């Protein structure tokens, strides 16, 4: 930004132009500091257990970001995480804390596994969009129902969405072990494998499926919706003060249901890619916890859809490395959940410093007489 000329006097060494940026600097510095604090706390935790934290983090780097193979693993995991984080970030614009994205993911996935059977024989260029849209529709209805319960009955959306996630997982287990079960799936009850023609392939020249590109595009579109349209602006007003928004005649009810449904649709889409690009059929692997990691990602990104992209990549790297790190260092499976827990607590606790860092005073130190 070249705003130096706007400053009255406009002396060359003035740093006053930084002042309007202070809010943005704080918005970036606080989450980064909180992330580092979370990593540090986890390092201390490892030290107390007699494990070497440097070895831990260097193994994470190697297995998550060190080689082309680890990058493709990380990027494949980033796709569902990006979409799951949107399921938290979009309703958050209205001040809603929706944490049940896992439910929309599994039901979107089951929808794909079940519907691919009768659609077999359709041309892929019709069937694939239909499958993706149906997965998004199921996810959108599932989380949109949470918004509707909130709007019409005042039901707390945090509790309701998590209850719905438990119900969705039970429903998935029922469907893949009952009505939609492929008799050939013996050890792990699954739907019938989807037709080879319907499988989502890799990005040209990459070892990562198309879901990543769609997920990144979804984040960009969500950012435009929230930051650059009147709908997003209305949502921000409603998120700040529902009553003021109603007085101004904003359609709060439509916003609540629309934003929760949109978030759920993205999570449902994550389920579509998990089945059609990763697993090949719907089964219990759909409940891999992406929905829950997505909550942390959205909070770390401060519910900004563009910031979700780097944060999701970082956490995807951690998840991609978990297998190797746990084997090499003889740590339990839950290691990454503990790390995520530390980071989550740190990012929420850091909110207390919002607006208290006095960045303006620090940046212009010595310039005021």
């Amino acid at each position, binding site marked *: 930004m070249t705003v130096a000329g706007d400053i009255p006097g406009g002396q060359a060494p003035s740093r006053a132009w930084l002042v309007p940026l202070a809010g943005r600097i704080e918005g970036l510095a606080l989450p980064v500091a909180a992330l580092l604090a979370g990593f540090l706390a986890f390092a201390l935790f490892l030290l107390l257990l007699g494990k070497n934290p440097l070895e831990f983090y260097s193994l994470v780097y190697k297995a998550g970001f060190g080689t082309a193979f680890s990058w493709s693993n990380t990027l494949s995991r980033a796709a569902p995480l990006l979409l799951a984080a949107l399921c938290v970030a979009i309703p958050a614009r209205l001040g809603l*804390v929706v*944490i049940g994205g896992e439910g929309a993911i599994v039901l979107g996935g089951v929808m794909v596994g079940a519907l691919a059977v009768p659609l077999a024989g359709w041309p892929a260029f019709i069937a694939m969009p239909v499958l993706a849209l149906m997965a998004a529709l199921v996810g959108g209805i599932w989380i949109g129902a949470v918004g509707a*319960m909130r709007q*019409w*009955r*005042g*039901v*707390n959306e*945090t*509790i*309701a969405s*998590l*209850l*719905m996630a*438990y*119900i969705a997982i*039970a*429903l998935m*287990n*029922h469907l893949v*072990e*009952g009505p939609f079960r492929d008799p050939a799936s013996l050890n792990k009850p699954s739907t019938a494998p989807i037709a080879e023609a319907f499988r989502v392939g890799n990005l040209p020249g990459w070892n990562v499926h198309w879901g990543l590109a769609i997920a990144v595009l979804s984040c960009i579109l969500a950012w435009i919706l929230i930051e650059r349209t009147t709908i997003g602006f209305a949502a921000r007003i409603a998120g700040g003060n529902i009553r003021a928004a109603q007085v101004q005649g904003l359609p709060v009810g439509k916003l609540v249901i629309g934003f929760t449904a949109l978030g759920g649709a993205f999570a449902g889409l994550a389920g579509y890619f998990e089945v059609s690009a990763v697993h090949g059929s719907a089964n219990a692997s759909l409940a891999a916890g992406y929905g*829950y990691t997505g*909550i*942390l990602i959205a*909070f770390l990104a401060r519910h900004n859809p563009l910031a979700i992209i780097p944060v999701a990549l970082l956490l995807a790297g951690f998840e991609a490395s978990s297998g190797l790190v746990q084997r090499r260092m003889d740590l*339990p*499976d*839950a*290691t990454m*959940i*503990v790390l*995520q*827990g*530390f980071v*989550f*607590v740190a990012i*929420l*606790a850091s*909110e*207390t410093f*919002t607006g208290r860092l006095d960045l303006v005073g620090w940046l212009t130190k010595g310039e005021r007489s």
Partner: protein
Amino acid sequence: MNGDIGLWAVPIAMLGGAIRVSTPFLFVSLGEVITERSGRINLGLEGTLVFGAMAGYALAYMTGSAWIGVLAAALAGAVFGLVHGLLCSLPKVNDIAIGIALMLLGTGLAFFFGKPFIQPVAPDLPAINLGWWSDLPQVQAALRVNVLFIFGAVLAVGLAWMLKRTRIGLTLRVVGDSSDAARALGIQPARVRILATAFGGALAGIGGAYLSLFYPGSWNEGISSGQGLIAVALVIFARWSPINCFFAALLFGAAGALGPALQSVGVTTGYYLFYAAPFVLTLAVLILSSSKSGALTGAPRELSITK
């Protein structure tokens, strides 16, 4: 008359199941009533419940005493509550979000430290046979009641009395209804809320110990699937009354016992759907007992979910 009682087995098994399944609901919701009466909500009790189950089982196994396990679970739960209470006392920190984070951390830590205790067998908590008067084995099995259930029932009455009749209860209610009024009376709201959250955590920890030390009676990573969350939702339904919590816990216990009860008479189809029954019931109850404006009768006015 021994054995075959036909379909009567279902309601009897459900009654016994209700008593068995309801105990963790009862402890978690009683703890949450106290926390919420002080004006805070702790959504993280699911994590506390799971950690309590692990800590209780581990300590019971290592010391050979189930009661030391219960004590350890209560202490661990109190620590989680204390952390929640302290963090939420910082300005601008959101209690609902902290609850989500602690849910994740509590479950993560429980799985992390609980791995070595999945195989070993720890001592069980004792049960009292209240079905001695009957010849039917089903009735006797249904009325084998754990000591903790009786303790929980007594606690519900005790807490109701405490809230209504004692100085501690009055302090809690004042803090929950208005921070300003509390300050005017010389009470520090933050301190009261921290203690109330720690107390709630301790009770949730005991609920967890019941899971691993009595029913189902072993530690594994699937030990609690949302009981802590249901119990938190149940508090809204119970309108922040400990006595109502007791009956609500029994109702939800019966819903949770539906699946196993039907299985015991040979109905196995739709197992997962019966498993989801308590969640569906919770959701239905929330829809019916909430109101469009968000204002709920009996709700502490400082509570974030009703503001």
